[in-house]
């Protein structure tokens, strides 16, 4: 199995998954059922996390297909460009869903308008991803290729967004170093927040309510967002450095685990329930989760920093 297989398996997640999440949200509105909406938002966040491996495995699949002559390179590049926009919309929708879930946990309800905004963003992502999926299908399925799609191939390679980002990454003297500096600051912020939250679960600062460390999570999200943007700049700017690099896939895997864990810490209900609001004590399962979270982040750091040595980036 290679990464093209993985892409073919996972590429249904952003479209099919979004359709399911959207159905849950719409059903939640129709039945006035907040629980359904909550599940819809959680699913939306999970799909946003999983869209990362879908995108990067797609770029890896592009490498695999380069050798095959009958596949039009332009068809792949068009698909990749639309997928990049779909990815951006998906992450934005996932972020808003996360904010809504975070507020929900704290106040028992999300701010007015936040869930509808997440729903609208999800519809936009689904539309763009649907278009990307269709273009992706046209790469290898002549039976669905529209007559005009074939004519649209072979044009100016400079028209692709990926090309522009690559030019900035290669020729700008300061963009790459500046993005790296931001990436390091972002990792400190994310790691600091998750250190505080997980240490609380592991039994440090037991005297304070869990709600008070939960208060820090948006700062972790800020660091994570900065790193997603700068990280995607590196990846889209110089994909060759990453797609043939094993530690990069380790890093993506650790990021998916860390993302799932972040959702768990956000919605984690136990510390809010009953009388133990102020004196929440974690059980073994909670502590295992906290250790998993910290391990995943150390894994992200290790695999990321080792990229130049175990892989091919600089």
């Amino acid at each position, binding site marked *: 199995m290679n990464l093209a297989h993985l892409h073919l398996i996972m590429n249904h997640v952003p479209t099919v998954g979004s359709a399911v999440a959207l159905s849950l949200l719409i059903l939640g509105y129709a039945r006035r059922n907040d629980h359904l909406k909550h599940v819809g938002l959680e699913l939306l966040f999970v799909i946003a996390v999983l869209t990362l491996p879908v995108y990067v495995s797609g770029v890896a699949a592009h490498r695999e297909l380069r050798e095959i002559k009958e596949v039009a390179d332009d068809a792949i590049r068009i698909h990749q460009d639309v997928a990049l926009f779909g990815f951006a919309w998906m992450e934005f929708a996932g972020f808003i869903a996360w904010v809504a879930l975070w507020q929900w946990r704290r106040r028992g309800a999300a701010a007015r308008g936040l869930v509808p905004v997440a729903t609208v963003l999800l519809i936009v992502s689904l539309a763009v991803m649907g278009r990307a999926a269709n273009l992706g299908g046209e790469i290898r399925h002549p039976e669905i290729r529209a007559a005009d799609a074939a004519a649209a191939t072979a044009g100016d390679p400079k028209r692709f967004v990926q090309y522009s980002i690559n030019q900035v990454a290669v020729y700008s003297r300061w963009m790459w170093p500046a993005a790296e500096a931001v990436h390091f600051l972002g990792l*400190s912020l994310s790691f600091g*927040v998750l250190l505080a939250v997980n240490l609380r679960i592991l039994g440090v600062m037991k*005297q304070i309510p869990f709600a*008070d460390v939960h208060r820090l999570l948006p700062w972790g999200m800020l660091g994570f967002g900065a790193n997603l943007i700068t990280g995607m700049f590196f990846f889209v700017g110089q994909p060759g450095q990453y797609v043939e690099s094993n530690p990069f896939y380790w890093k993506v895997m650790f990021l998916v685990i860390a993302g799932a864990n972040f959702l768990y810490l956000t919605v984690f209900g136990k510390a809010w329930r009953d009388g133990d609001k102020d004196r929440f004590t974690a059980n073994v399962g909670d502590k295992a989760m906290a250790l998993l979270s910290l391990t995943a982040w*150390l894994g992200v750091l290790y695999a990321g*920093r080792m990229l130049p040595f175990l892989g091919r980036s600089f």
Partner: protein
Amino acid sequence: MWAFPTILTLHTIGLAVLIGASWMLDLRLLGIGRRVPLSAYRWVFPTVAVGLVINLLTGVLLFIKNASTWGVAFPFFVKMALVVASVATVLPMRSIVLRGGDLQGDVGGNARLLAVVSILAWSAAVTAGRLLAYTVV
């Protein structure tokens, strides 16, 4: 062959521990989670100490590798000055936390100023460190 990457990776992990923990205290001093008593933040100092020890040790080793060029490079001294300045902000914060005890709510203006200086100094130190890789070979 494995030594350099491992040392560099440990330096990055130490950085995350050191700066992450000290930023959490900075955020508290700036009023994020002001309900939390200052005494709850005592864990920050041993954590910062662990990160600092890791990074001093690995930093010295990284310096030895490039001593002849870094030792005379201006950007390197800028980074060192920024690291010293950043660490220097942690010490008065420690006395604020220890003196503050179970204080809840806002800390004084001086402590807030200190927190801002700390955040900026760490950011500048990390940026300078990262740019070392580009300015001094």
